[in-house]
């Protein structure tokens, strides 16, 4: 139940890639007819990505993943438009690929506004408008959050940005296949996506760049991707990404209906069975597959470990690995205390999950939380199970 971290690759995707490993292995930038199949594979994939976003084929540029796309979009716009302004607006709950890129730009002399979010994790388009100055060159707000699943009012934010002549980038890594996207209707100038979040290959991604948008290159060198992203094309990866995005966006509504049904039963079941628990994120404006909880008195990593021992993969916003175990910036931004933020659990459903998985989780999780609360010094006596030995 950790599909937001990465997904398995669908058999159809691997099947689409297979011929390009060894049979059509040509370098698509090569010249001879032998390379034609590679070129065709890449261009068909480009078409599939364009179609999924309501964009033209020539506005799609392949990258090695979501992080590269985010870095490229933000640094690229910043460096190419420096003489127009040095101010960037983003939100406090972006992925680190956006936040750390913005921090790097601050070191290069740019100034960045990190907008707050409400208790559900939503950015207020009015805040975006208020933050815009005549130095603002870019607004970057993600389409859907990877931890708490909150979907942002992207179209409104896009409109605000455009009303002020400011470019709008959105990290849609978690949104592909979950939110119907139309870059024109949503006022999006740049959009990042990553293949392995929708049953495509790892190490593949794409950046949509609206025609005419000034963006400096991130990777300099050969003339690949029409001179904008150097490096021999990862042909099988690109082909797989194309196939995966076509599959993922074929029936977003039907997919969401099925997944949200399971997710809602899971959330209700957890909150019914476990006291002192809360569901994080927005009640309705959220990804269909995402459930995020805070369980008081316990710490997230230990929840994961005990779930793992019972065969359930999950994720937590508490990243106790750096020594100074930082709680999730997203959970703090929606107003959770450090303790609550440390005790978070993210469950994200995917195509492989069934109702039986939900049953299993509902069977296991209350026990796991109960055992950890028994260990914890924070647990009030009232919330403690009878002592074991």
């Amino acid at each position, binding site marked *: 139940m950790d599909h937001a971290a990465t997904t398995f690759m669908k058999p159809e995707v691997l099947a689409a890639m297979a011929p390009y490993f060894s049979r059509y292995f040509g370098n698509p930038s090569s010249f001879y007819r032998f390379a034609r199949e590679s070129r065709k594979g890449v261009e068909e994939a480009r078409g599939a990505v364009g179609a999924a976003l309501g964009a033209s084929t020539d506005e799609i540029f392949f990258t090695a993943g979501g992080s590269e796309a985010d870095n490229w979009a933000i640094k690229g716009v910043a460096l190419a438009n420096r003489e127009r302004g040095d101010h960037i607006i983003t939100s406090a709950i972006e992925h680190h690929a956006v936040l750390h890129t913005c921090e790097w730009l601050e070191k290069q002399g740019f100034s960045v506004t990190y907008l707050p979010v409400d208790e559900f994790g939503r950015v207020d388009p009015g805040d975006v408008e208020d933050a815009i100055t005549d130095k603002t060159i870019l607004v970057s707000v993600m389409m859907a959050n990877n931890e708490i699943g909150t979907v942002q009012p992207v179209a409104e934010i896009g409109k605000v940005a455009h009303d002020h002549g400011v470019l709008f980038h959105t990290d849609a890594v978690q949104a592909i296949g979950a939110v119907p996207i139309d870059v024109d209707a949503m006022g999006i100038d740049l959009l990042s996506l990553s293949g392995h979040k929708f049953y495509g290959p790892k190490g593949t991604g794409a950046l949509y760049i609206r025609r005419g948008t000034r963006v400096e290159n991130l990777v300099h060198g050969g003339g690949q991707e029409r001179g904008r992203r150097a490096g021999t094309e990862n042909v099988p990866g690109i082909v797989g990404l194309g196939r995966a995005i076509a599959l993922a966006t074929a029936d977003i509504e039907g997919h969401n209906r099925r997944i949200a049904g399971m997710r809602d039963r899971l959330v209700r079941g957890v909150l019914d069975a476990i006291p002192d628990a809360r569901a994080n994120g927005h009640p309705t404006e959220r990804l269909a597959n995402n459930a995020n909880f805070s369980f008081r*008195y*316990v*710490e*997230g*990593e*230990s929840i994961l*470990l*005990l779930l793992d*021992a019972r065969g359930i993969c999950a994720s937590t916003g*508490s990243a*106790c*690995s*750096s*020594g*100074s*175990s930082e*709680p999730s910036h997203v959970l703090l931004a929606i107003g959770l*205390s*450090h*303790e609550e933020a*440390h005790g978070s659990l993210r469950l994200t459903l995917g195509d492989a999950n069934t109702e039986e998985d939900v049953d299993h989780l509902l069977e296991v999780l209350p026990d796991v939380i109960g055992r950890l609360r*028994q*260990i*914890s*010094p*924070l647990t009030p006596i009232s919330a403690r199970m009878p*002592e*074991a*030995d």
Partner: protein
Amino acid sequence: MYTEKVMEEITNPQNVGEIADADAVGEVGSPACGDIMRIYLKVEGDRITDARFRTFGCGAAIASSSMATRMIRGMSLAEAWAVSNADVVEALGALPLAKVHCSVLARDAIRAAINDCRTRRGLEPWEVRSSGCDGETGHGPGPENG
């Protein structure tokens, strides 16, 4: 990330709980840090006859507390004071580098409990500097050298 042995200590921690009439309690960490360890001791004369813990924290914190309480049962207070975080790691077999600070927390919790015991008995606490969130601790002189 964790070895089987450490996972066993996490899924089946030993000595969980409180000692109702404890002779000493030591607590380190804070909710903001993401780790709290509280160690309870029963001390007869100079000897630790029972040790229990409650921990809020990651797997390594739970495993370290469990192992630490197992190690110090039956030790003298001076012996228990001398238990280093490296001893805890060794007893666990191994901890990921990023998790070694949890073994430091366990050592600090033991020392805090020992000093609580000494204070209750009207003795000077042995010198110790408490660790911050980052698990760095000054090494106060133990009983051997102070």
